[in-house]
């Protein structure tokens, strides 16, 4: 038997080991070779060449952020995500339902991308509608007389009379409540959808969106002109953020959507989009104001799984139009009504879209419809609105071929006057017909959840309430409601005193003083982000993991 010496034994072992190792390597190599073959193709496929210019990189950053918002799972978190960049809120153009300045229609059409059409004052002949008018006529007249009588009595109890605007608001609300009740009572037997409507009294309608195509302010132009490489972009248009705040008298909501009256082909029309008016000046040149606030979208209720999510009809006030000077003229009065209808309809639909996971940066995937009535009790104007697109920001204002549509009537009188004896004179059936036509418009479109909420995660996770983690649920709920509450932030914005502006900023006269204030340290408090705050302290007694645990000293945050 062959016996090897100790050294030879070792050498043989090493040899065997190397052989084994080599064979394993060659095997791996052959496998890798096949993979390499797949990687190579006859035609070279290069990745897309990205534009690395400053402007393109900025645009790409914006697109990335919009995609991040889209990827956020729940409705509430999307709205928090929209607010993440600003602790003290965005600077927004303040659109409200109680201010329509002179010549506001072009701005409104630009900001909402809306084509305005005139609707004939008469509704098509319909035997069913005629019968309904006949049936409800007496009830409505009675409701009108009762409302006037009631308000007269209420006024007689007051020591000081309210002003004209307040009087109109109070009277119109009573009239609308009575007319709405009478109409619902009369129609709900024939129209089953009226039995399921949710009625909001004085609801809160708010919406936030971004608008492109506005001229840059002077400071932006000057700062860009100071940079050699930015000089030619100094006059590029910028985005403006818009916040609408409104409070209609009444709003009716339903589970299903109203049918569309414009097809997708009609809405997708670049030539029509190009013809839309463009208001490129600052909105303040018209008389609108700006303010700082968080982006808030509220369609009159909080997000909930089973709420009737789609608007059927809303009744807007026109009481503030009394405050407009007579010099504005009749024509502008009519345009103001159109502008008011467009703004309120767009904002309500946008807020509804927000609860379905869309927002100003994430495009709508199906159209939304609503109907709007502007009234002072006597004069009624009827509008129908179709929301097809939400993209108005950045370059979309030039490139987006989709437009929204609004059609409406001039104000029609429902009655001539209420006589001394409290009787309704000159009742106008044509106006009642229009009103009944809007009530009898059946919301018939039903969509599957996947189609309805394409940007929201899935059936298990749609709203913040669906999270398993109780702490996270509570955090999201609290943050979302706090943003919507418009309360001032816990940490107030630092103030620049007048003497500091004069002697430190405009004229630096105190060069020997230590620089401690934020404006001397080059800190912009407006740039503070939503999550830049101290975390909440957890007392030792309730700290998870025992009193000595230093890990859980602060509560976790769940910002998206």
């Amino acid at each position: 038997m062959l016996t090897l010496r100790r050294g030879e034994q070792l050498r043989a072992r090493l040899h065997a080991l190397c052989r084994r190792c080599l064979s394993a390597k060659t095997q791996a190599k052959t496998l890798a070779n096949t993979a390499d073959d797949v990687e190579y193709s006859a035609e070279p496929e290069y990745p897309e060449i990205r534009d690395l210019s400053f402007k393109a990189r900025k645009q790409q950053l914006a697109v990335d952020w919009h995609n991040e918002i889209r990827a956020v799972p729940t409705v509430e978190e999307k709205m928090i995500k929209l607010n993440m960049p600003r602790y003290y809120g965005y600077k927004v153009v303040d659109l409200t339902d109680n201010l329509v300045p002179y010549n506001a229609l072009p701005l409104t059409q630009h900001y909402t991308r809306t084509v305005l059409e005139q609707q004939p004052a008469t509704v098509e002949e319909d035997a069913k509608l005629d019968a309904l008018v006949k049936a409800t006529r007496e009830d409505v007249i009675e409701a009108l007389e009762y409302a006037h009588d009631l308000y007269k009595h209420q006024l007689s109890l007051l020591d000081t009379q309210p002003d004209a605007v307040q009087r109109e608001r109070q009277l119109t609300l009573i009239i609308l409540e009575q007319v709405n009740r009478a109409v619902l009572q009369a129609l709900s037997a024939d129209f089953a959808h009226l039995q399921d409507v949710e009625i909001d009294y004085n609801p809160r309608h708010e919406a936030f969106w971004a608008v492109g195509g506005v001229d840059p302010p002077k400071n932006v132009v000057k700062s860009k002109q100071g940079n050699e490489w930015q000089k030619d972009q100094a006059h590029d248009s910028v985005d403006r953020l818009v916040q609408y705040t409104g409070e209609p008298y009444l709003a009716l909501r339903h589970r299903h959507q109203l049918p569309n009256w414009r097809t997708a082909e009609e809405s997708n029309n670049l030539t029509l989009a190009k013809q839309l008016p463009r208001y490129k000046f600052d909105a303040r040149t018209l008389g609108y104001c700006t303010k700082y606030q968080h982006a808030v979208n509220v369609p009159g209720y909080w997000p909930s799984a089973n709420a009737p999510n789609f608007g059927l009809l809303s009744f807007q006030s026109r009481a503030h139009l009394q405050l407009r000077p007579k010099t504005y003229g009749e024509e502008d009065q009519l345009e103001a009504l159109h502008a008011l209808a467009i703004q309120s309809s767009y904002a309500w639909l946008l807020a509804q879209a927000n609860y379905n996971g869309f927002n100003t940066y994430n495009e709508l995937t199906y159209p939304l419809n609503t109907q709007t009535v502007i009234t002072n009790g006597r004069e009624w104007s009827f509008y129908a609105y179709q929301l097809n697109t939400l993209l108005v920001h950045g370059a979309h204002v030039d490139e987006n071929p989709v437009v929204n549509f609004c059609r409406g009537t001039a104000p029609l009188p429902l009655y001539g006057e209420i006589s001394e004896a409290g009787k309704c004179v000159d009742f106008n059936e044509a106006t009642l017909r229009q009103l009944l036509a809007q009530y009898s418009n059946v919301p018939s479109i039903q969509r599957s959840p996947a189609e309805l909420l394409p940007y929201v995660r899935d059936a298990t996770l749609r709203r913040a309430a669906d999270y398993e983690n109780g702490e996270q649920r509570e955090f999201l709920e609290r943050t979302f409601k706090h943003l919507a509450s418009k309360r001032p932030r816990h940490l107030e914005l630092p103030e620049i005193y007048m003497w500091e502006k004069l002697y430190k900023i405009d004229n630096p006269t105190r060069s020997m003083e230590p620089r401690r204030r934020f404006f001397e340290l080059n800190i912009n408090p407006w740039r503070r982000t939503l999550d830049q705050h101290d975390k909440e302290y957890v007392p030792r007694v309730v700290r998870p993991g025992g009193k000595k645990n230093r890990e859980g000293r602060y509560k976790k945050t769940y910002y998206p």
Partner: protein
Amino acid sequence: MSTRWYPVYQRGNPQLRVFLPNFWMKLVRPTEDQPANVVTFAVSTQMTKHDVKNYLEKIYKLPVVDVRTRIALGDTKRDQVHGYITKNDDVKLAYVTMPKNEAFTFPDIFANKAEKQEQDEKSMDESKQGFRKFLDRNKKRPGTPGWYSI
């Protein structure tokens, strides 16, 4: 303009009758772009929106739809020698809206400024040229008066 200050009305005082109020309006070029039917004026701080409207309507017969006013803070300036700060008076700016079919463009007061400057420079050059010629001619006889040669 009156030499008296426009007195602020106090309750109980006699009804004010001012025949030459201390009111003035100055058309100014807007610092930011604005619609063609809006005109900017710098006005005396005492004037109200109604005063501005009446001033333009009654005296100049202008169609005024709306007036919005604000008070702009005066500029501050540092003294170059002593270093103290001075401040200009605040001024009220009135943004007057005319009907939307009206348009106003701020007059270009110095439209032919460049042209005039060119003319001036040309005549200056010519006289300089003439003087240089005169000096050349009298190089060899310094101190000769201008009228000496033909």
